[in-house]
């Protein structure tokens, strides 16, 4: 089938259109702020200052961003195979179980740098396992992955509540959470890194999993654009028919892609569970799996876009907390609206401004639009 829309120059496609979409999302969010009787510009100033104004704030921003990089990459990898993994939330939740089991077993015998690789493996394994069943059903039995992953989010939530209340809770304790991990199950903080560049950080949960997130982003780039598997994933994503004709096993690609996606989502759990709270709590994911959808859409499924998009959402989370303090009318739920608007404008309505931009470009230089159309396909 032909593409419904003609191509624009690459810089407009990857720079201008996302920027316009993002801008519109924030303008609408500003209207909501107006609607509740506050000044949106003042709100924006407080938000940005609260997110990057001080060293402490930057550390928090990067802490939140860490989680979003993982979940954003998870969604993006699946997108490349034209699979919509909406189950990042559940995969991260179950990934936390993997982290906790490793930490509870080894925290008294191993130092953190030996527990850490085991915990990474645990998180990835459990996250991937939770993605495996929907992936298998999609590949083998054709059940829609969106629906099954939604269902698995709910099943994961029920399962984890059951495990925390009935199994993992230490005897005599009331709160549904595991015991606190000992030193061997705690990740070192990264605050010295910010202090090295002259910022003051008193205490913030930014930890080494941030570096792991950056490594993961690089590895995803290598995987998608520099390996044979990545090529097969993208081929299946562009045209399942072409992939089948080229001899790519669809079942294998779908399952492997979802395993990678689930593993990335599961690794998100390292950040809050091992890096901050040092115990497994109910609902520790707090929507990060869903933020990943917005991050992946905004970053156009490319690690180079996902990392800044994740940092932007980290800013919204951290700055939003400050904003809720300054303007009580604007609670943290404002971020949920912004998240929804970003998903709407950068995702579902991504083509809204394309025809008019197209016309604009055509009026300036018809050749730029027409001639580059054929080359633009490769990007």
């Amino acid at each position: 089938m032909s593409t419904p829309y003609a191509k624009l120059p690459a810089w407009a496609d990857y720079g201008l259109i996302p920027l316009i979409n993002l801008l519109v999302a924030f303008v609408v969010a500003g209207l909501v702020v107006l609607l509740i009787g506050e000044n949106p510009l003042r709100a924006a100033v407080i938000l940005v200052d609260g997110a990057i104004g001080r060293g402490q704030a930057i550390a928090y921003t990067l802490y939140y961003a860490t989680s979003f990089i993982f979940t954003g990459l998870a969604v993006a990898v699946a997108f490349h195979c034209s699979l919509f993994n909406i189950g990042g939330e559940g995969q991260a939740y179950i990934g936390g179980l993997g982290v906790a089991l490793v930490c509870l077993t080894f925290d008294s015998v191993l130092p953190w740098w030996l527990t850490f690789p085991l915990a990474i493996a645990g998180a990835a394994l459990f996250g991937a396992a939770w993605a495996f069943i929907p992936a298998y059903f999609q590949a083998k039995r054709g059940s829609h992955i969106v629906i099954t992953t939604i269902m698995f989010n709910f099943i994961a939530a029920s399962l984890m509540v059951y495990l925390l209340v009935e199994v993992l809770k230490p005897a005599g304790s009331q709160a549904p959470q595991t015991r606190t991990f000992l030193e061997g199950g705690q990740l070192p903080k990264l605050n010295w890194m910010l202090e090295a560049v002259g910022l003051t950080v008193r205490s913030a949960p930014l930890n080494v999993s941030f570096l792991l997130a950056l490594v993961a982003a690089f590895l995803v780039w290598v995987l998608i654009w520099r390996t044979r598997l990545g090529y097969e994933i993208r081929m299946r994503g562009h045209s399942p028919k072409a992939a089948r004709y080229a001899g790519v096993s669809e079942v294998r690609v779908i399952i492997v892609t979802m395993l990678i996606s689930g593993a990335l989502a599961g690794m998100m759990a390292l950040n809050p569970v091992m890096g901050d709270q040092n115990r497994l709590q109910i609902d520790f994911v707090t929507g990060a799996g869903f933020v990943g959808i917005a991050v992946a859409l905004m970053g156009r499924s490319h690690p180079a876009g996902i990392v800044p998009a994740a940092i932007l959402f980290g800013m919204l989370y951290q700055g939003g907390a400050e904003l809720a303090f300054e303007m009580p009318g604007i609670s943290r739920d404002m971020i949920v609206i912004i998240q929804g608007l970003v998903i709407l404008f950068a995702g579902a309505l991504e083509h809204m401004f394309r025809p008019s931009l197209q016309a604009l470009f055509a009026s300036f230089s018809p050749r730029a639009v027409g001639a580059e159309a054929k080359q633009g396909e490769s990007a």
Partner: protein
Amino acid sequence: MDLFSTLVLLLDSTVRLSVPLLFAALAGLYSERSGVFDIGLEGKMLAGAFAAGAAAAVSGSAWVGLMAAVLVSSFMALVHGFASITHRGNQIVSGVAINFIAAGSTIILGQAWFSQGGRTPLVGSDGRFGAIHLPFADALRGVPVVGPLYSQLLSGHSLLVYLAFLLVPFTWWVLFRTRFGLRLRAVGENPAAVDTAGISVQWLRYRAVICTGVLTGLAGTYLALAQNAGFVKDMTAGRGFIALAALIFAKWRPVPVMFACLLFGFLDALSIRIQGTPLPLIGRVPVQFMQALPYILTVVLLAGFIGRAIPPRAGGVPYVKER
């Protein structure tokens, strides 16, 4: 309490709990049958519930609340339509966006307008859809078997409960006995054929999503003004997704949708009822397992182990008119 009256009580709460699911699942039926997937049922229901609660609290009238809910839910359905029909965006992405926008804005606006921590003020009896007592309900109460069944199970529900169950045959009639329904189903299976016949695919799909909006508005109104006396934040609590599960479970057919909703409502009622009490043979069933059961059943069904759920063929695919 003897077994029979326990059973009647259980069925009674089954009916109450399945009504919001039924409204929402029928709502999804119109949209998905026309080829527009809708995972934003949850968000539209939540926005509807908030609008109902807010409007009823301000005006004091349940009917004003109902109107507001239908308007707000329909507006959100039109946003979904605008993205996925006019701009051919990804329908799943659009549905996810609707869910987030509803989840965030109901709390923010509720707090800004009523300052009660995201809930709307409690409404009096005029602001609610109260129980309707069917004729002779009190007179028949004493009659064994028939009495409790009639006076407890059938009588004493709100208007919206009866409306929900009447909508089942109505939806069947619309889909399978009217020209609009035939075209609606056709556009979900093969939009090109409908287009060739000179019927606008876009307008047909827009009408379908408007039906969805109206019905999700009713679902929200039921939650806010019949089951409760006002809006509480996040009050849909995943019901939109259970409704979606019911819709799939029923293979996109109206009458099975009703039975699927009753089944899921029954599971819900049962899990509240048997909380903590051991069952014969099985022992104590964890509450969490009962809560997860609708989702597990849907996954099992989707995997094709019990029958096969085949969605409308053109579902999720935006229609591009040939030039």
